[in-house]
């Protein structure tokens, strides 16, 4: 199955627009940032209730070898992933499952912040 740039869950999008800016950067032949060159766009409603990434992209233009496209690389929460529809489904289940145990997965995807976590040691403080 073909890989595409997928949104795992709207509520994992922090609305930071890293994806939008870096996509614009590559699509403008690296001239700069902004300018409406991006293939991905974050829509925010008037009252800040949601961030919705709108994307319809196979990622082939910026990752001819199937590596991680730049929007996925720069996404800080793991909301964007590069996979086929079957993997997307698995990731969604994984996210929902892990959220039950760890509230921090409301804020970041488990694949972006895998165990083991670093803990603050007393002597480090």
């Amino acid at each position, binding site marked *: 199955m073909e890989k595409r740039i997928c949104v795992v869950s709207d509520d994992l999008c922090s609305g930071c*627009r890293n994806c939008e800016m*870096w996509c614009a950067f590559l699509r403008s032949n690296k001239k*700069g940032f902004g300018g409406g060159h991006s293939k991905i766009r974050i829509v925010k409603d*008037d009252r800040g209730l949601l961030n919705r990434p709108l994307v319809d992209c196979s990622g082939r233009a910026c990752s001819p070898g199937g590596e991680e496209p730049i929007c996925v690389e*720069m996404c800080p929460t793991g909301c964007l992933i590069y996979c086929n529809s079957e993997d997307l489904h698995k990731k969604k289940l994984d996210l929902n499952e892990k959220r039950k145990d760890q509230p921090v997965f*409301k*804020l*970041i995807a488990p694949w972006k912040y895998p165990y083991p976590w670093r803990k*603050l040691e007393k002597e480090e403080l």
Partner: protein
Amino acid sequence: MSYGWRGKILRVDLEKKRVFSEELPKEWMRNYIGCRGINSFILYNEVGPQVDPFSDDNKLIFGTGPLEGTPVGMGRVSIQTKHPNRSIAEGGAGGHWAAELKFAGYDFIVIEKKSERPVYLLIHDDEVRLCDARHLWGKDTREKHAILRQETGIDNIQVASIGRAGENLVANAKVQFTLDHSGGKACGTIMGDKKLAAIAVRGTGMVRVKEPDRFLAGYRQLRRHLDLKETIDVFVPSWAFNGANMLLELFNENGWVHAFNAQKGSLEPMLNDVEYLDQYITRPESSFCCPFPACGRRYEVKEGKYAGIAGDEREVGFAQAGPINGFCSWPVVLKFRDLCSQAGLDEDQAMYTIGWATECYERGIITKKDTDGIELGFGNEDAFIEMTEKMISREGFGDILAKGSQEAAKIIGKDSEKYLLTIKGKELERMPQRNGYQMALALAVCEAGPDHTRWYPPYPPNPKAIPKHVEIPFDPFKAFQTRSVDDKGRLVKWLYDSRAVIESLPSCVFVVRGLLGIDLSPWLELFNACTGENLSVEEFLNVGERIVNLERAYIVREGFRRKDDTVPRRMLEEPISDRHIPPIGKNLDLMLDDYYGQRGWDIETAIPLQETLRRLSLEFVIDDFREMGIHLPETPVKAPCGEGSRREEVK
């Protein structure tokens, strides 16, 4: 063609309702870079000592810098004006507003004169106009945002606005950007005085990068320093999800909290960050291109008295309202956050002023008669919320508190000023001082009141994790010994200079962590790659030093001297009672001597020496001081202390 900078200043005359576009001089870019640096330069040159803060001639400056609009800028904007107490009112804020301003083609907006009727400024690329805002006046900031989005019909327009606090000229009112990002204490007040309700911006242009591949490589490096697994900074992972929340517990354990108006160092029970994340946080909500997953978050109160409250928060300073006023309840502090955010009220002013009034009430200095029947008392949550509302609307006793605690103490008298927690007339920002002398010194010498973002972060990088090739201009072991005066001058000077230049790029000081906080070369690499400049690390740091000296010159010209560089009396004279931590006492004076010596300032007056100003190419300040008759010392009166001379610690 200009890289990084868009090269334009927008000047808005509110009286004649005219807008001019002006070229940004190349010399300014090189000497001050942008954002906070150029703002300070404009303020120094255009708002002189003769200008009254509430007069037509005071100016309000919104600035961005060369890296704004790129992912390194992180949406930072610096707002600057003359503070009502004649010092500098400066603050940074995040959000998406600043990036849109860059995309629209402007680096700076200078607001001049006053309007008779409320207006708002609309910037949509080349279309810039002032519009009637009578229908917006009196509305809260979120409503202003929503109305302007609907009214203009411009997709994704970003709004900077003031709320009722700014409109009612509450002392330190802030400007709110993109819903719940805020900054610029007292800038909201001056914006209200100028009757400018909002600035709505949308741009579709580009911020160009000179060397794109180098820039991308530099950015990847920056992200690696902040990577949750690879960073050498143990606080990065906690910060990435919890913001300052994780500090609540840490502060409380170590007695760093200003509990009960800083009479104590901790509160039991204390607000718990795990409970907060579990019950009140719903999802991440970031500034423009923030590299952290959830430094900003969206909260929601689902049940109880305050059910239905929702908004964004970051850097959870507002939660300290709990310990300062002696209560422990997430819904109440979130209600407080919501009130402040909607009204553009400064949380620090509100929480410390009410904390101070509460102590005065408990000591019998004020009574129920003064407070309009409200029983102020530590732990009285309802009274706290009620008083916050009264401050915003300036009703009854709230009108006195709205002037700020220092002014309120002058009105109340009866020794109430003994319990103030203010520096240069502004309320503290929750940073402990008796337990961390570097913080006490840094807050005391800050040109813009007790601003902690100018020297952030207050904790040391782990000295063992610092790579050998990184040169640090202070001894990290000595400098971060919290209750000693050793090497604090060099540390604080370096913190100020390096942060000044990072704030001028601009970038967010909350990512200046780990190696990024002690090594400027990743920042310089990004700056050079973006703009095509070729600065060295020394030149880069020199810019920071120049900015700090110019800001010092500004407040010197307004009459501020060494006596104003101090911390609240409580920190100097009273111990933290529940922790047996002694007051700072004369140690502050030792550190000040050291700091001024390191800076090349006169130790008696804190005025920069002529040779320092010359070294930093600030000759115009020398001429200015001469004209005004301010005595400029030639050579240091005493030898700088640094590693030696007057180092006698007072226990």
